[in-house]
């Protein structure tokens, strides 16, 4: 099938995975409302599988996108390898995040359709974030994602920490949204369009180059994204929000929001704003630098595993930024690959933390992990795999990912970043290993209860996650190929629309401004 946006139905096709997820969310919400007698009663157990089914459907729909032929690529929605890959990652995060969270929801007696609905809505936002090429869609998608996640963060109403985390995340997020929006406004002000395919050509035409306002716009846009991926110094909310949020949510947002944020950075900054590279490359370089160094140091001081993992997830944003800073197809592929791996290991780690923490999430201190490896060998082994992968240790996916990032950095001549990457990884070894030593080298005191046995869904997710990481470490060939293809498959493929080509592509030839306004999606039939 050829997808050329010649009819508005094509938009539906192009957005099929998102639509499937959204519809699933709505269905879940409706069925749940009708099914549940009292609001405080937990939802029926089939809600979970239903959502999973929907997500699997979205995965299939996403896979179906691969079969499409997409000749014209100036729509709001990009149908390219990158988006599809990002969708896979985000959907994976959603599926695994949900599988991991069921145990927690049941344990805390908070299993509700709303939770799942919010997750699915956040997923819609995330998917669009990686798939859109329009600043307006970007803004709405980012807000959709963010607001869902704010709510999820505060989901545990009994917990003071949860509320505090939600408030901090929300205030900071809204604040950052202001900057992001200002950035969008300024970019619009300097290039006159929100559709970045036009922005790109506009900049390339030279009308906007060296425009300080464009610089300010790019910088503020980048700040907004940096906030979402928690890059230093815009990361300060992260440890608090991650620590306070219900742990499955932490995993979900650490993996999903970050993935979506990076998707946006890669697409909007490195691809669409490629002609303005001089504006952002230095910023990203320094962001990468700081984001590798600061959280890795701060994580050393943590004695709470959850918070430590929060810092670690910031550090991973730093590593990912190296891939972005490399600003090459290789770098983008590496970022993509690393995101997938990162998602798997982060989700798994946080999930294990909540399992250990017990009802009410009370035991997430390092000392609560004592003897875990011997008491729950499989859980311990899985955690070891996750931690080693986070540390970037072979033979796990984390290692391959870091190697990929490293090669991208080396290829782009970013030796300083490469060396910082490995040296900060070294620092990170310490705090990851510290968990392992607590788990295996120290005896659990009698008073420390053994973590309960995880449920089927959790066990399934954890084993698949750990195995996937090992497979990615030992046989990454397929993943690398996919990532490499997806990393190169980003519209605009031919970088810039040729001068003069842009107007002629517009069907309604009235006036330039109007055509600009309407050219974002090819004219629907009237």
């Amino acid at each position, binding site marked *: 099938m050829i997808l050329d946006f010649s009819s508005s139905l094509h938009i539906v096709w192009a957005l099929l995975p998102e639509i499937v997820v959204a519809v699933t969310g709505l269905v879940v919400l409706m069925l749940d409302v009708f099914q549940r007698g009292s609001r405080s009663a937990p939802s029926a157990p089939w809600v979970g599988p239903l959502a999973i089914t929907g997500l699997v459907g979205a995965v299939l729909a996403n896979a179906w996108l691969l079969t499409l032929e997409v000749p014209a690529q100036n729509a709001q929605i990009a149908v390219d390898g990158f988006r599809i890959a990002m969708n896979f990652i985000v959907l994976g995060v959603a599926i695994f995040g949900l599988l991991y969270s069921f145990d927690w929801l049941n344990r805390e007696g908070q299993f509700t359709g709303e939770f799942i609905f919010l997750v699915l809505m956040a997923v819609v936002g995330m998917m669009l974030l990686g798939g859109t090429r329009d600043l307006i869609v970007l803004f709405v998608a980012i807000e959709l994602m963010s607001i869902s996640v704010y709510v999820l963060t505060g989901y545990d109403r009994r917990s003071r920490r949860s509320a505090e985390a939600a408030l901090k995340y929300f205030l900071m997020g809204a604040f950052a949204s202001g900057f992001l929006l200002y950035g969008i406004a300024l970019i619009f002000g300097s290039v006159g369009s929100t559709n970045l395919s036009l922005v790109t050509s506009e900049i390339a035409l030279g009308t906007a180059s*060296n425009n300080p306002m464009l*610089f300010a716009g790019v910088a503020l846009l980048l700040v907004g994204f940096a906030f979402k991926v928690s890059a230093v110094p815009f990361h300060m909310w992260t440890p608090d929000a991650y620590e306070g949020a219900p742990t499955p949510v932490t995993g979900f947002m650490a993996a999903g929001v970050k993935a979506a944020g990076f998707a946006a950075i890669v697409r909007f900054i490195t691809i669409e704003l490629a002609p303005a590279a*001089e*504006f952002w*490359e*230095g*910023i990203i*370089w*320094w962001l990468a630098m700081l984001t590798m160094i600061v959280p890795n140091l701060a994580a050393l001081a943590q004695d709470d595993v959850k918070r430590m993992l929060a810092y670690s997830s910031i550090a991973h944003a730093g590593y990912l930024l190296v891939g972005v800073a490399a600003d090459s197809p290789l770098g983008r592929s590496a970022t993509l690959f690393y995101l997938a791996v990162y998602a798997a290991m982060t989700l798994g780690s946080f999930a294990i933390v909540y399992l250990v923490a017990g009802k009410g999430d009370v035991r997430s201190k390092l000392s609560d992990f004592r003897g875990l490896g*011997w008491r729950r060998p499989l859980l311990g082994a899985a955690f070891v795999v996750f931690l*080693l992968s986070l540390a970037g*240790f*072979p*033979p796990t996916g984390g*290692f391959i990912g870091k*190697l990929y990032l*490293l*090669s991208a950095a*080396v*290829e782009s*001549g*970013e*030796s*300083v*970043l*490469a*060396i910082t990457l*490995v*040296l900060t*990884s*070294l620092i990170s*070894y*310490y705090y990851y*290993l*510290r968990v*392992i*030593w607590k788990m*295996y*080298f*120290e005896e659990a005191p009698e008073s420390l209860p053994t973590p309960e046995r995880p449920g089927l869904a959790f066990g399934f997710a954890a084993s698949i996650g750990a195995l996937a990481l090992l497979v990615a470490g030992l*046989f*990454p*060939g397929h993943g*690398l*190929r996919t990532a*490499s293809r997806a990393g190169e498959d980003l519209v605009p493929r031919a970088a810039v629309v040729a001068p003069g080509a842009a107007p002629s592509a517009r069907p309604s030839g009235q006036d330039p401004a109007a055509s600009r306004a309407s050219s974002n999606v090819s004219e629907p039939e009237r």
Partner: protein
Amino acid sequence: MSFFESHWVLTVLLLLPLAGAVACLFAGKDEAKHVALVTSIAAFLLSLPLFWVFREGTPAIQNYVSIPWIGQWGIAYTVGVDGISLLMVLLTTFIMPMAILGSYSYIKRQEPTYYAMLLLLMTAMIGVFIALDMFLFFLFWELMLIPMYFIIGVWGGERRIYAAIKFFLFTAVGSLLMLVAIVTLVYLYYRQYGVVTFAYNDLVELPVTRSAQFWLFSAFALAFAIKVPLFPVHTWLPDAHVEAPTAGSVILAGVLLKMGTYGFLRFAMPFFAYAATSDVVVYTILTLSLIGIVYGAWVAAVQPDAKKLVAYTSVAHLGFVMLGLFALTSESIQGGILQMVNHGISTGALFLLIGMLYERRHTRLIEDFGGIAKVMPFFAFAFVVVALSSIGLPGTNGFVGEFLILIGTFRTHPVAAVIAATGVVFAAAYMLPMVQRVLYGPVEDEENRELTDIGLRERIVLLPALAMIVLIGVYPGPFLEKTSASVDALLQQIEMRASQAPLEPLGTDVRFDHMPILGVDED
């Protein structure tokens, strides 16, 4: 082609301990050790025919195979042995049964995991020695850390956690920088030939500019130097050795340290021949080796803890090996390789012996012993023989290695050889006082009076080592013959490539970026 000439023997050698490790995990508490022992002995028996099947007189890699693995990056499962790695593999398979059997009564908890870790370690170590793909090599190189971390951390002594983490981090510093260097090398190769490959045989042919060689060599050298360990990055070693359980120390000293020297020989030197043979590098490494030899011996001499003493002797012995390697003569390199084997056997045996004492007395302090020869005569005998091997008495293996190293070194760096030869004196000065204070003198401590001499199992553990000490001491020929062709070829290669290293970038130079200043210049 028979089984033993095919790569299968290597592949099976890799997989066998891995399978054994899994089997151990599923074996019962009491059976695990037997599983491990049988596995390791099977691996040893499997590796033994390699020694005879190996074709001498050719530097060619034997039992070679290259199976595409991660095509995207030109990574392949490439394994094979030449004379140098052959000895290392055999050393590994030789040491492991000893280490495992030596742990039989030492390890009293979590046995299945323990033995699984040992076997996993075995796989990693063999892998390091046979890998001919940089990725594969690095994989095994790093993989080795995890089981060792566990072995020290779970089954170690008082300060095991400190030692484990120190060991891990120290080693990791170097390996990570080496990883950057490997990636850079691959990238340079790509720039030059347009092919992405991690294959050793390809990368070794890459002409790297002289200036880049120094950077990359440094990264490799740091990784290997830490593992060796070369002064002053040796301080992880005493801690790790002391805290590790006996088998851990045995393997650490016996095999792991060799990975560093092997790395120099196999990778750092041929890859960056110009840098490796340049004056500044050679003199730096020789100096550090000499410091290691002398200083290691000095510090060993004043250790109150027997195990720590032996640990420091490793610094000295490996100093000899490094000296031999960087003296760049056929004699010294062959001596160095032989000394790697020797040190593995002798120091391994020493750690086993000290472990046996520790099992009985739960102390390693030299002053707690005395007169042990009276109550444990066979132990004393073995201890003395091993100690003599360690100080390099002629007729034991230690002498052959040291002698070749020194005489070879003397050809190119006479002063260094003379200084190193003083190590011979110091060796006596640290080892004999310990022997004397542990074995001799009156039995003053009542606890020592009750000690029982080592039993049959322990004798079986030690006998192979004792036999090898004497065998290599009087008839090292077969071992030297294995390495001679490889070493000669290596030397030739190094010499040739050192002279051919391009002075100017051929479009393959490393680019070093500057720290970008935020924003852009207006002009």
